[in-house]
C-alpha cells in the first residue's frame, strides 16, 4: 500500500466538516505546520480539535481559530491566544480544559487499545465533575476515557515511506501518542527517506500507526519565548 502523499493538500483532502482531529505539538514546537495551512485553505468547519495548546493569534492552531473553523477545543493550556479567549468568553467556541498528563494518557490509551485509564489528576476539582471515582490502595482516582478521533495529524523530523517516524528533541511531545490514536494518522516530516534508511533501533513511531506521510516544506518553526544568556 502506498502511504506517500504529494503534499498537505492531498493528505487532508478527505477531512470533512465536523471531523475530530488530534494535532501534535507543544506550544508552537513540533506542530504540523503544513497540514494546518492546508486545513485553513480548505476551510473545513465545525472541527473538534484535540491538542495541548491552541497556538498563538497568528500561527499554529490560532490560524484555524481566527478562520472560525473550530467548534470545540480540547486542550490543557490556552494562555497565549487572545482570539481563543475572546471566542471562549463570548460562547462561540466550546472548550474543554483537561490536565496535560490526562490529555497525553487519553491519547495513549486510544493507541494502546484501552477504553479508559485511571488517574489521580483532578480528583477533588471541577475536572472530576461527572466522572467515576475509584479508590485503589487508599487513594481516589478518576476514570478518564480514551479519545476517539477521526484523524491524528503529527509532525516528525524524519520518516520513511513505510510510515516509521523519528521526532527531534522536545518536538516529540504529544506527537507519538497522537500518531497511535488516530483512525487515520497523517504524518508530515522534514525528511522523507526510503525504508531501510532509518535505524530500526531508534524509530519512535512504528509505521503500522501511520496511514499517510508526506515531506513538508517551508517550516517556520516559530519560537514562542526566545530566551538567551550572555556569553562570558
Amino acid at each position, binding site marked *: 500500500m502506498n502511504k506517500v502523499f504529494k503534499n498537505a493538500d492531498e493528505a487532508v483532502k478527505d477531512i470533512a466538516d465536523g471531523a475530530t482531529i488530534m494535532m501534535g505539538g507543544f506550544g508552537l514546537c513540533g506542530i504540523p505546520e503544513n497540514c494546518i495551512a492546508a486545513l485553513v485553505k480548505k476551510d473545513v468547519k465545525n472541527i473538534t480539535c484535540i491538542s495541548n495548546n491552541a497556538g498563538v493569534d497568528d500561527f499554529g492552531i490560532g490560524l484555524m481559530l481566527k478562520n472560525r473553523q473550530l467548534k470545540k477545543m480540547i486542550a490543557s493550556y490556552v494562555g497565549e491566544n487572545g482570539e481563543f*479567549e475572546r471566542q471562549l468568553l463570548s460562547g462561540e467556541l466550546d*472548550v474543554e480544559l483537561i490536565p*496535560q498528563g*490526562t490529555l497525553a494518557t487519553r491519547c495513549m490509551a486510544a493507541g494502546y487499545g484501552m477504553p479508559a485509564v485511571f*488517574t489521580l489528576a483532578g480528583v*477533588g476539582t471541577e*475536572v472530576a465533575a461527572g466522572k467515576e471515582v475509584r479508590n485503589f490502595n487508599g487513594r481516589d482516582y478518576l476514570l478518564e476515557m480514551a479519545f476517539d478521533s477521526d484523524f491524528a495529524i503529527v509532525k516528525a523530523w524524519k520518516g520513511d515511506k513505510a510510515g516509521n517516524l523519528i*521526532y527531534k528533541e522536545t518536538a516529540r511531545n504529544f506527537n507519538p501518542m497522537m500518531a497511535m490514536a488516530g483512525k487515520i494518522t497523517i504524518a508530515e516530516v522534514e525528511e522523507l527517506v526510503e525504508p531501510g534508511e532509518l535505524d530500526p533501533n531508534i524509530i519512535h513511531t512504528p509505521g503500522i500507526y501511520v496511514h499517510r506521510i508526506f515531506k513538508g516544506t517551508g517550516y517556520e518553526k516559530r519560537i514562542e519565548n526566545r530566551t538567551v544568556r550572555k556569553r562570558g
Partner: protein
Amino acid sequence: MALTKEQIAQRIAKELQDGYYVNLGIGIPTLVANYIPNGINVTLQSENGLLGMGPFPYEGEEDPDLINAGKQTVTTIPGSVFFDSAMSFGMIRAGKVDLTVLGAMEVSETGDIANWKIPGKMVKGMGGAMDLVAAAKNIIVAMMHTNPKGESKLLPQCTLPLTGVKCIRKIVTDLAVIDITEDGFKLIERAPGVSADEIRSKTVGTLIVDGDIPEMIF
C-alpha cells in the same frame, strides 16, 4: 524587608538535595535553577519531554525544537534525554520526580492549591499542574504572600477553582517559610527584618507561631 522573587527562589534552592529530580514551574520556580548550591547535583525535568535541562542558549544558538514547559528556548546537559508527553507524565504520576516547585494564586491551610482559573476573567488552563500536584511527594509553592490588592493568598479555604486537594506541605513567600500542618499554617522562618506579627497580619487562616521564629539565612 520582603524578599525579591530571586531571593524566594534562592531560599527554595536550599531545599534541594543531591540526586534530586526536580520539576520547576513557570515564573519564580524557574529562577530556582539559578541558585542550585555548589556540590549538589540535581536533574531538571521539563514536562514537555526533557530530563536534564540546561541553561538558556547563547544568542544565535536558539533551537526551536528545544524548549521547556514555559515554551522558552533552553539547552540540554550531558546525559539528558527526550521523551514523549505520556512518558513524562508517567514518571510524574509514578512519583519519580523528587520535588516540584510551582506558583499559586491561593493555598489553603489544609494544603489545597488554586492556580489555574479565575472564573469569568482568566481561562488559561491547568497545563500540567493538576497532574504534578496530585502525584508529587514533595511540593513547594513559590509565591508572593499577598495578591496585588494586598490580600492574603494564604486562606482557610481557597475561593478559586482548585488545582489539587490536600497536596501542599510547604510555602515560600516573600515574607516567610510556612509549613502546612494538621493544625494549619506553621511559621518556620521569617524574611530578614519582617516580624512574626506582620506575617500574621497578612495571613488569613490559622498561623501557628511557636516560640522565636528564626530569620532566613542566605
